[in-house]
């Protein structure tokens, strides 16, 4: 006597993430081909890389213990320079972002202003701060001023975009109510738009300050001043213990800033 096949399915399989089998298989095969090509053409000197392990060990050994004392004066200089740079570039960037952000909000600005402001934002968003910094160093010479200019331009792309998007999402009834009182344009901005976008914008400026400090740590590598310049010098002089100390300080400040900015943003909202 044979057991009859049950009418219901007796096994179950997880439904696949991508439903269409054609798309699924083409993605799988495509990625396999890509990986094969990528690894095939990647010009890696494996012998040199294999040396990396003992080198890495020596490198790490040279990092410990971090040397906070020998170059203390230079380190403090670099850190303060970075902090000043972050503050000034955030302030300048935001000051420039406000008119651009107002112009880039479709519900405030006429079409041609909108297009001009959007293209300014697009332009400053495309290039990473480092590339901006390279050109700023070429134009303004070595030092924190170049870093300041690069970070300010970077801030415009970030801040003006978010400001414009926030203004586009405001509650229009409040704006209408203020307009109905016969307010002038500046009054309208000040009483209808500004209070609605302010809390988020304060949070974002703290966040941007945080980003600008991080970035100020790298613009120094291309000559833009700040702690990055100190770090780069430490690497170039093979003073890894000092470099380790600088890295630890950067990590510490970044973590502190991240907690403060998170806390401040919660408090504002």
């Amino acid at each position, binding site marked *: 006597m044979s057991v009859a096949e049950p009418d219901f399915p007796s096994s179950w399989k*997880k439904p696949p*993430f991508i439903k269409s089998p054609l798309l699924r298989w083409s993605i799988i095969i495509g990625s396999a081909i*890509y990986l094969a090509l*990528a690894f095939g*053409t*990647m*010009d*890696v*000197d494996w012998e*040199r*890389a294999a*040396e*990396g392990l003992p*080198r*890495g060990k020596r*490198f790490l050994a040279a990092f410990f213990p971090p040397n906070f004392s020998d170059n203390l004066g230079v380190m403090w200089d670099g850190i*303060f*320079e970075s*902090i*000043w*740079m972050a*503050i*000034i570039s955030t*302030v300048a960037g935001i000051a420039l972002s406000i008119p651009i952000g107002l112009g880039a909000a479709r519900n405030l600005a006429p079409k041609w202003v909108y297009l001009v402001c959007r293209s300014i934002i697009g332009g400053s968003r*495309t*290039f*990473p701060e*480092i*590339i901006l910094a*390279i*050109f700023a160093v*070429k*134009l*303004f*010479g070595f*030092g*924190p*001023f170049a870093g*300041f200019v690069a970070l300010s331009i970077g801030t415009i792309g970030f801040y003006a975009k978010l400001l414009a998007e926030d203004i586009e999402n405001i509650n229009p009834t409040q704006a209408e109510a203020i307009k109905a009182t016969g307010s002038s344009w500046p009054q309208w901005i000040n009483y209808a738009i500004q209070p609605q976008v302010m809390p988020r914008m304060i949070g974002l400026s703290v966040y941007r300050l945080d980003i600008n400090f*991080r*970035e100020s*740590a*790298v613009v120094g*590598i*291309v000559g833009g*001043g700040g702690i990055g310049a100190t*770090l*780069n010098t430490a*690497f170039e002089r093979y003073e890894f213990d000092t470099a380790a100390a600088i*890295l630890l300080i*950067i*990590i510490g400040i*970044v*973590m502190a800033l*991240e907690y403060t900015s998170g806390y401040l943003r919660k408090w504002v909202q």
Partner: protein
Amino acid sequence: MPLIETPDGPIWKRRTTKEQFIRWFIWLIAIAIIAYAWKGISDKTIWFFVQDAPRQAADIGARMIPPKFSYMSRLWAPVWDTLNIATLGTVIALVIAVPVAFAAAHNTTPHPIVRTIAIFIIVSSRSVNSLIWALMLVFIFGPGVLAGTIAIGLRSVGFCAKLLYEGIEEIDHTQVEAIEATGATKAQQMLFGIVPQVLPTFAGIGVFRWDINIRESTILGLVGAGGIGLELSGSINTLAWTQVSMILLVILSTVIVSEWVSAKVRGAII
């Protein structure tokens, strides 16, 4: 919002006098800090160079036009390298980020100590910029694509793991309970209860980070970690400005294309 009684009738003001004073005081402190910070910067600036900048900008601008289009034939290989650094770096990051994220999420972590370690990994990976990672890795592995790829990978671990563990913490617990009620083991609960819920988030994070990594990998060459940044710094150092403008055009189009791809894919997933 106080009303102030005057002989001519009430006047509406936005803030009380006390609020107004506090505001002025905060502004005063803020402006003092800004002025001090500005002094710190301007003391270290050679103003002659700054005054000279518009002339320099015009000069460099003129030298950059027209871009040297014939140089493109030599740029395909670095572009391909840049793409590989970003993509393989993202893959490395995602592979490492998955266990870290599961260890860091409140509802899946095996032990609070493991969670602390995972959070520490996330924070330290996020605090060090990819350029600094690359700077260190070039010392270890020598200049080249490998150092860049690993730098991008290490830098992205924190970002991916952070977003992923937040996604894991936000899942719907009833589904996991339902799986548990069938008598599934812990591993099975994870595989059938949690993973299907976070898979779309995971794919979205991967594509999002890939887009950021394309941007970041264009500059890694500045410290010798391969890709198009190497050509860029070479061209800048040899003052070949027509090549520089060509490279900038290439970077611009790569970034635009990657942004478009990432927006399309994320639109399809979410």
